[in-house]
Each structure stands twice: as structure tokens, then as C-alpha cells.
């Protein structure tokens, strides 16, 4: 890691880490549920030709915890948007939870996300396509030393409902508004229902990581 910046998203301070400076559009890494940003560029991502940055999502890594919880993926999309406001246009590589949040960001800021790569990782499925039996837990255990990952984030972000047609809408936003022939590349193996639906959309491909890098590195 060569440095970090603190960015404000409403009442949360986010930690955005520069893993490798370089000329060219940054690759923005989004970690999985309960993970944090890596300290160095992971070996399998070293082939990206530009800079590499990584964002700790709210409740994770060096970012603030949301007191009283209330975590939801659209708020994490807002985290990513704050990072985009700082970095300018990016290509996203998201693992697990970060893949779903990356999809939302690619749909929400289609002109500034120049391709999103969706990979396997913790928290990929979320709470499934429909609500399950309701529960209202009042305790989820103590946070780890340092406070993150917030146990409430783990609880809430494994129960958030991810309807396939809702996810597909974001894929459609990304492909129609980005101007890219391919806006999303799925490089993982697992296919929760939301991702199955995303893959059916135009502008979404399944491919090896190297191919996704080549495609998005040369994207306008």
C-alpha cells in the first residue's frame, strides 16, 4: 500500500487505499463481506495495466462502523460513488458482497464505471431472492478488536434480499448508459439467483479474468 485517503460519506469516514500508483484508469477493488482491502495488489490482479485502489466499505477495514447499524447495499453503492468522486472514472473488481455492490455502482454511475468485474467471494448471495422468516435479533456478539468488521454488518448483509429482476435492472442500466458493448464481466463460478439473472442481460459476459482485464483496460 502506498497511501490512504479518508473520504466522507454522510456521517461515515471511508478509507480508500492506493495499492499501486500508475498512469491510466484505476482498478477499484471492492472486498467481500467481512473482508477488508488487501495491503498489496493481489498476484492474480497484477495484470491490470493502470493504478490499483481498494475501498473499505462502511463497517469494514479502516472505515467507520455505522453506530446502530442499518446496513444496506445501496448505501454501500453510495460508498463506491464517493470513491468515484475522488478517483474519477474507474473499472471495478468486486468480490462477493463487493461484486453485488459493484453491479449497483455500475448501474448507478454507468458513465463513470468503465466496466465491472464480478468475482466469487464472501457475501455473494446475500439473503436470497425473497424475504425469509422474519427475525429481530437484539444482539449479534461483540465486535472484534478494532471494531471491524461490524457484526451487525455481517448479520444485515447476509439477510438483504436481492431479487433477480432488481439486479437485472442495474445490469440494464450499466449496459444501456455506459456506451460500452460489454459493461459487466462475470469471472466467478457461483451463480446465486441475482447473478443468474444478470448474466441473461445484454452487455454481460462470462469470461476469464485476463480477458476481462483486456476488454476493460482498452475501453474508452
Amino acid at each position: 500500500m502506498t497511501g490512504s485517503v479518508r473520504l466522507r460519506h454522510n456521517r461515515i469516514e471511508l478509507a480508500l487505499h492506493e495499492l499501486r500508483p500508475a498512469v491510466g484508469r484505476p482498478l477499484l477493488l471492492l472486498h467481500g463481506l467481512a473482508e477488508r482491502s488487501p495491503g498489496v495488489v493481489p498476484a492474480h490482479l497484477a495484470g491490470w495495466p493502470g493504478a490499483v485502489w481498494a475501498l473499505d466499505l462502511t463497517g469494514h477495514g479502516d472505515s467507520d462502523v455505522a453506530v446502530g447499524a442499518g446496513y444496506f447495499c445501496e448505501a454501500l453503492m453510495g460508498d463506491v460513488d464517493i470513491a468515484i468522486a475522488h478517483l474519477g472514472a474507474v473499472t471495478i473488481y468486486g468480490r462477493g458482497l463487493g461484486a453485488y455492490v459493484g453491479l449497483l455502482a455500475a448501474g448507478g454511475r454507468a458513465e463513470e464505471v468503465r466496466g465491472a468485474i464480478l468475482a466469487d467471494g464472501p457475501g455473494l448471495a446475500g439473503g436470497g431472492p425473497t424475504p425469509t422468516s422474519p427475525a429481530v435479533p437484539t444482539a449479534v456478539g461483540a465486535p472484534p478488536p478494532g471494531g471491524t468488521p461490524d457484526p451487525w454488518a455481517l448479520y444485515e448483509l447476509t439477510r438483504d434480499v436481492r431479487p433477480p429482476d432488481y439486479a437485472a435492472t442495474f445490469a440494464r442500466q450499466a449496459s444501456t448508459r455506459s456506451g460500452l458493448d460489454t459493461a459487466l464481466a462475470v469471472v466467478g463460478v457461483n451463480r446465486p439467483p441475482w447473478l443468474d439473472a444478470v448474466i441473461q442481460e445484454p452487455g454481460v459476459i462470462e469470461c476469464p479474468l485476463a480477458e476481462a482485464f483486456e476488454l476493460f483496460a482498452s475501453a474508452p
Partner: protein
Amino acid sequence: MTDTTGTFPGARRPDRQRTVDSHGLAIAVHEWGDEAAPPILLAHGGFDFAGTFDVFAPMLADAGLRAISWDHRGHGDSQHAALYNWEADLRDAVSVFDSVTFSPVPVIGHSKGGSLMLQLADALPHRVSHLVNLDGLPSRRSFPDVSDHQRTKLMAQDLTSWLDHRRSLVNAQRKPGTIDELAERRARMNPRLGAEWLRYIVTIGAREDADGWRWKIDPTLRFGGFGPWRPEWSMMRLPDIGVPVLAVLGTEPDPMGWGTAEADVLSHLPAEGRLVMLEGVGHFVHIEKPREVTDMVMELLA
């Protein structure tokens, strides 16, 4: 400090106010009636606050109940949070319940508060003895028939607007104004409620700063937007409920209402359920007809 609270016929401020810690957030709790009387809990709607029960709750108190309500996180006098979601609102409700009793209690919920209490009664049936739902049964909405292209365009506008809003939130404040100006702004969403009532609730739900009155509600919160939630996810809880249920709907269209039809509810009513349609009344049934709704509640409890 000068008391700036307005007046309204029949309105009475709470007899007691306190705060409850809910997972690190201070939730403001308001009570009307004898502290030793049987409790009943009231959950307000979205963008409302407990003070909107200032006529209804005193009627319940005068009927012999201890009426307890709370400001949802980010609303009224409760603390503003970094994040808001449905699960957190439910936990806050349970924190308030825990501060009152662990025995089953009657609950009343209006609009969003009605949906919250419905889910709480489904998740924690041992905490609820009777459920009163005041136009808080979202039903499948009928969207206008628009093309896929148009729908994509509309969602793009929603997304951009929401993200732009999130980027602008640091140190954001609500717009100041006079009591009349704030009442006029609220009248756009509450057109059936009279100006006198709206001016009254400004003096409860807003604070007076040096440059004017501001609604206390967190400026982070905004109407509309998008998300995965579907209205039918709330209605599907209703058949599960095993305690006596009273559902009340107004028949008049209202901007804050769900437009839920009688047939939508009847098909989901549980065995111990009753639906009352109030003719000529809008979304705020307990504000437009507080006496009638109080009588129905007392009949249910009897």
C-alpha cells in the same frame, strides 16, 4: 427558554418523555396517561413523529391506557443515524418495548409504523397481544404501463438523483422557514389535514434556529427512490398473525397513502382479523377521525 409549542383543539403534549438507548442510538420515547395503567404502544409513519399522536394518544390515555410512542431513528427528537433500514427500525422498536414490558402488549401502527408492527408481530408474537393497523398494509402497486425504455430512463434519473444527494450530505441541513412556510410544505404531502393542525405539528416536529424553523428529521432521509423492497412483502405477513387484528383504511386517495383496496386486505385477513373502511377519510385515519379510531381500539381491547 420560551415554550414555542403551538396549540390545537384536543392536542396534549406527552405526560412523560425519556430516551432509550438502542444499540448506541438515543431513541426519544413519549408517554401519555397513568404510568401504572395498561400499556399500549404506538408506531408512527414515515416522515412523521410521535407528536402526530398528540390528539389520538391522549384519547387512549383518557380511556385508561398508558399510551407510549417513540420517534423512529432520524425522526422527531431521536438521534440521527449513519444508516437507516427496516431491520434497524424493528430493533429500535424492540428496545422501546423492552423498556416498558416483556409481556405481550397491544400495538398500533400507522402507515410505515403499521407495516413495522405487522412484521414485529410476525417475528415476535410473544410480545404482541393485539394488532391495530392504520393504513399500513402496502399492497401491490399498479404502475402505469410504460415501455422498458421509459422505465430504464426513469430509474436512471432516480439513481443519479439519489447518488447526487448522497454526495451532497456532509453538513446538510433542512431548509429554514417560518411556521407557515413549513406547514405549507407539509400540506403538499398532507393535503387533507387542516392548516391549523399542520402549524401545530411544525412546533413539535421542527426546531427554531436563528434563521428560522427547520424540520428535525434527518436531511439524509428523502421521499421516493428505489430499492429491492416490494409492497407485497408486507401484506404477506398478515395471514400469519394469531392475535386479534383490527385494520383500518380510509377510502379517500391521499399522497402518503398506499392506495390499498378493501379486497387486497380481505384476502389476507387472519382468522381473528377485522377490516374497517372509513368513508370520506384519507391516509391519516387517526388524525381525521381520532374519536372513531379510539372507540374501535377500545372495543378491540375489550
